């Protein structure tokens, strides 16, 4: 595929959504469409074509009610590379501290002429609430422990690049499954594309109910290591835990940290991902995180490409030459 500008004249047929709220609601075809689009953008970026002015005059706002550096920067960069303007909005400095409601805040921002709201919020369903109340596009950049669709997409993109496929792979998500939005987006996306998904972690954070949803669960990392193709090491979400679900970080690391010794038990071509920010020594030891099996930095690069694809699909012209 040649990422010349004519490849991007109109949003491909088969994409009809105004919002990107979750991977659970997308079809396998829609997910593949985003991934293919992201691959084109990545190719352009690799060729140092860092500006593809496909969305001139469009304005996106990042409406973040939780701290983030990586995701926010990634979205802002993605928008700018497409020629769109971005504005950052932080909850701490806003009228929310003066008692304004979440919906009123968003409506006010929309009234300033915004084409897309990229929202991160501590509460599951907050992006859905915005989508129901705003006319512009809404992109979920993480809602509580519910979903983080662009993170799921960039993880899947990285796996697809490295492994050449998703179908038939055995992929384990390890760690704080209960509180992880990344886990949920990965689970739905990977399952739709035909992977076998295992969730693995302490029994207080891994519900047996996952089996009802066609997801294997395990409490033992050592037991599943020999048969997995990909490991995705999730961060412990201390900030979302109401009560401490395990006795100590030390004990957790003992049971679940991916270190050199555990690496010896894996398939030789194991791929290791971590959505970050990683706690070195807790989920993964530095030698593994920086080793040849790790794709942690590639994930970050792919994040920009995936977010460009998402913005383009939501905001790009449905017909050639009709951006407005």
């Amino acid at each position, binding site marked *: 595929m040649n990422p010349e500008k004519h490849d991007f004249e109109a949003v491909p047929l088969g994409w009809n959504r105004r919002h990107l709220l979750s991977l659970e609601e997308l079809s396998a075809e829609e997910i593949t469409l985003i991934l293919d689009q992201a691959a084109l953008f990545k190719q352009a970026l690799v060729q140092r074509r860092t500006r593809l002015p496909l969305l001139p005059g469009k304005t996106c706002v990042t409406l973040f009610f939780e701290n983030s550096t990586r995701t926010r920067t990634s979205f802002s960069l993605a928008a700018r590379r497409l020629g769109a303007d971005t504005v950052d909005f932080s909850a701490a400095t806003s009228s929310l501290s003066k008692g304004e409601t979440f919906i009123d805040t968003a409506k006010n921002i929309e009234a300033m002429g915004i084409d897309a709201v990229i929202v991160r919020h*501590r509460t*599951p*369903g907050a992006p*859905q609430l915005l989508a129901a109340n705003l006319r512009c596009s809404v992109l979920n950049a993480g809602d509580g422990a*519910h979903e983080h669709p662009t993170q799921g997409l960039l993880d899947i993109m990285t796996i697809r690049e490295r492994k050449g496929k998703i179908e038939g792979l055995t992929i384990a998500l390890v760690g704080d499954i209960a509180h992880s*939005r990344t886990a949920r987006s990965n689970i739905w996306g990977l399952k739709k594309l035909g992977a076998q998904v295992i969730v693995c972690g302490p029994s207080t954070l891994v519900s047996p109910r996952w089996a009802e949803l066609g997801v294997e669960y395990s409490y033992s990392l050592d037991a599943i290591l020999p048969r997995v193709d990909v490991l995705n090491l999730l961060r412990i979400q201390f900030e979302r835990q109401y009560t401490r679900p395990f006795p100590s970080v030390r004990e957790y690391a003992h049971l679940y940290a991916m270190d050199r010794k555990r690496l010896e038990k894996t398939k030789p071509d194991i791929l290791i991902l971590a959505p970050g920010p990683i706690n070195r020594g807790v989920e993964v030891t530095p030698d593994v995180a920086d080793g040849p099996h790790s794709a942690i930095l590639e994930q970050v690069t792919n994040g920009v490409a995936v977010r460009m694809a998402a913005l383009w699909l939501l905001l790009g012209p449905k017909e050639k030459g009709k951006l407005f």
Partner: protein
Amino acid sequence: MPSLLIQNGRVIDPSQSLDRVMNLLVLDGRIAALDAQPGGEQQIVDASGKIVCPGLIDMHVHLREPGREEDETIESGTAAALAGGFTTIACMPNTDPPVDSQGIVEFIRGQAARADNCHVLVVACVSKNREGKELAEIGQLVKAGAVAFSDDGSPIADPELMRRAFEYCLMFDKPVLNHCEVRELTGRAVMHEGQTSLVLGLSGMPASAEEVMASRDLTLAETTGGRYHLMHISTAGAVDMVRRAKRRQIRVTTEATPHHFTLTDECLRTFDPNCKMNPPLRGKDDVEAVIQGLADGTIDVIASDHAPHSKEKKMQELDQAPFGIVGLETTLGLVVTKLIEPGLLGWPKAIRKLTVNPARILGINKGTLQVGADADVTIIDPAVQWKVDPREFRSKSTNTPFAGWQLTGRADTVIVGGRIKFRRT
């Protein structure tokens, strides 16, 4: 007051095992005669094709006044009650200030008298300031007219306080009403813990949070001999516990809300704050157990747990939105549509749970059409089809998950103390 003849209705009065078509004569605010013939100066109410029953009683209502008049007032709440077919409602004490003194009880009764819609019974606090620490002045509250005691809105967490409440209320023959929830087990959760909460990434309230406290309460009721009423029962396990406790002659009664026999936690998939209530909407097995409990008599009462919240408060992020929905104006329609029409509950059994059973629990001389009783009468059109439109509610709040539902059955005429207080036009 002129006499009133309610003609040709199907009179259902479970308090005297009555279920047949007849005329009912009302004179001077009382039921004067059954099988009466027309004659003299009478106002005739034609009830052909309708059901005539004792005025419906809702023993679990939040009227919000004093303190949160933006959500509901005693006047608007009692107007909603009439439109829903209720002639008597019991209001919960989680107002601001809470109902823990004679003055507040008298204020509520005064406001209800001024509103002059339906009867309002006051449920007062078990503990001072509803803090769950020391008993409120229960004797004084009884004197002021309180009919039952509850810290509703908060569970009674301290088992020692619960024990003393059972024992102390025995002196006055009053029931203790508890909201069963072990708060340590529910934390910051907003919905039922199950497959849906797992998918949505929302922390869940496990069924055990209700059942652990229900079990404690039943044990304390048994050892003290106290009168226990378990409010808004919602889990299969709790229904089973009450069933077994009744077999052992423990003095326990319980109620179910319409939302707990019609909706499951799956409703939260839309993230609609109108599906956030406490106890939460449970799983399918729990809903089936509640229906079974209603059918076999384990569950004595149907009550709305009418919990009005203004739109600006309710339509927020799920963790910010308060718990609860309005119910006075949809309860009867949901009972008819979801229990009676599908054949899960017959009319007399359903009417029993809305009249004589709550009356007996609250110790009031209502819920009956016996000659000499107060002429509180509800005439129901059992066949009318209607669509729930919150804009038509008399309640000040519209927080309902049933908007747009097509229901069968609705109150047609409501008579309170011999006077027609509501007539659907």
